């Protein structure tokens, strides 16, 4: 364990605590246990990647932490207080961009700020423009959403999530729909932003290398029911190169573990 990781564990209170969290959906084909017995602590400023096959409950877990869904069992604490609904301290970036097409790029980033009390109009616009600059979209502030490319839309969504200055950022496969080159540029941007703004991040993905590049920790999940079955600490220096040897080595180790877990699961 490196010094910083020890420090994070020792001195700072965990930002997110999940204790025995479970979520069962009542579906048409009976009940689905999307998530079961999840125990998890995420320290302040930590970047945690959730890795798992499709349908293993990653989005559900994120929605639970966001407060968009209520757990059927267990409890979730954010900064020591139980999560009972959505809050501006935990912003979400969804699997699809979820931007509002009737608003301009700037208008989308302003949405969350308009709901923040005690923020005059001028200040709101300044904050929004600051985040648009951070994601490199100043020139497109007054563009319509449909005029942007997929990568630009995801960057607007990132700016919108960052603008209310949440302590926790919940990201659900935000870059899944993008081409490799755009994605790699955004990895760089995201690492830079998290270094500058010091966010606690829960980042869902099913791309092993992506998890290794971004995460301080990589958690593995298995499906039916969704559970956490592995916890890897990534102690490589940043910024990391997705094509580097270190990442490849770690990724193959994680993939092997994931396979082993899946065959265990399949034998059931």
């Amino acid at each position, binding site marked *: 364990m490196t010094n910083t990781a020890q420090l994070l564990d020792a001195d700072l209170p965990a930002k997110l605590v999940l204790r025995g969290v479970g979520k069962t959906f009542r579906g048409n084909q009976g009940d689905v246990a999307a998530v079961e017995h999840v125990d998890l602590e995420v320290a302040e400023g930590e970047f945690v990647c959730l890795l798992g096959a499709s349908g293993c409950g990653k989005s559900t877990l994120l929605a639970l932490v*966001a*407060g*968009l869904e209520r757990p059927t069992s267990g409890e979730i604490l954010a900064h020591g207080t139980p999560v009972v*609904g*959505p*809050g*501006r301290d*935990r*912003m*979400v970036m*969804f699997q*699809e961009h*979820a931007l*509002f*097409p*009737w*608003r*301009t790029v700037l208008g989308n980033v302003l*949405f*969350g700020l308009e*709901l*923040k009390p005690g923020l005059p109009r001028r200040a709101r616009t300044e904050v929004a423009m600051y985040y648009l600059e951070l994601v490199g979209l100043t020139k497109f502030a007054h563009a*319509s*959403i*449909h*005029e942007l490319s997929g990568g630009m839309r995801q960057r607007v969504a990132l700016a*919108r999530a960052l603008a*209310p200055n949440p302590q926790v950022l919940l990201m659900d496969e935000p870059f899944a729909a993008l081409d490799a080159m755009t994605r790699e540029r955004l990895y760089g941007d995201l690492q830079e932003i998290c270094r500058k703004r010091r966010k606690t991040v829960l980042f869902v993905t099913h791309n092993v290398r992506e998890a290794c590049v971004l995460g301080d920790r990589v958690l593995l999940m298995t499906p039916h029911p969704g559970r956490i079955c592995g916890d890897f600490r990534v102690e490589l220096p940043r910024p990391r190169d997705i094509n580097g040897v270190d990442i490849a080595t770690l990724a193959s180790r994680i993939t092997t573990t994931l396979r082993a877990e899946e065959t265990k699961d399949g034998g059931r």
Partner: protein
Amino acid sequence: MTRRVLNFVAFLLLLLAAWELLVRAGAWNAVLLPAPSTVFVYLVGAARDGTLLEAALVTGRRLGVGYALGLVGGLPLGFLCARFQFARDTIGVLALGLQTLPSVCWAPLALLWFGQTEAAMTFVVVMGTTWSILLATADGVRAIPPIWVRAARTMGSRRLHTVFNVLLPGALPAIVSGFKQGWAFAWRSLMAAEIFITILTGFGLGQMLHYGRELHAMDQVLGVMAVIVGIGLLAEQILFAPAERWLRRRFGLSL
């Protein structure tokens, strides 16, 4: 754009010229279908003495009041139907049924209830507007991707804020087309009502048509018809074209 406008203007002029020539050549009885020049002379005269403007204002006021009431009723009811199954099963089904009824069918009842008053006219227009606006709003709101609402909730949007800042703008493309349809229904039903019902409080365009026929003044009938077409086109350009342009620019739709 100008090219296409010119095309149409040329086509129209050609049509009118042919019509004029045929009447002058005595192709049919000019009493039944007078020449465009006769209609034009009538229009100039009626515009000068103010009868046309007065009738247009009376009709416009009826339409405006009825349409506004239809909006005020249809929009919130549409939202209710979108959000609550119970409202859908009651008001929603009723609206679906009543929408198929041409609203001029309400005229006999309206006369009975309100007498020969403005209220009877307004009622017919309201019945023509409300249901299509209600249904379009309900469909539009229901078609909104749930992820927009979820995203708004994470940013702190609740109840009424969500209604006004997510559901309403999100359903705007559907709502505007509902408005447009409601307008068309209202305009048609008002004309029908004005032709059939004589109202003592005002003399609208429909009534001018009616009396044009009674007096065998076909120049008046055709002139008023032209005015009705003109008002319809103008309303389209003033009320809906800008809204649709905005929607297209923002949403990037081809409406």
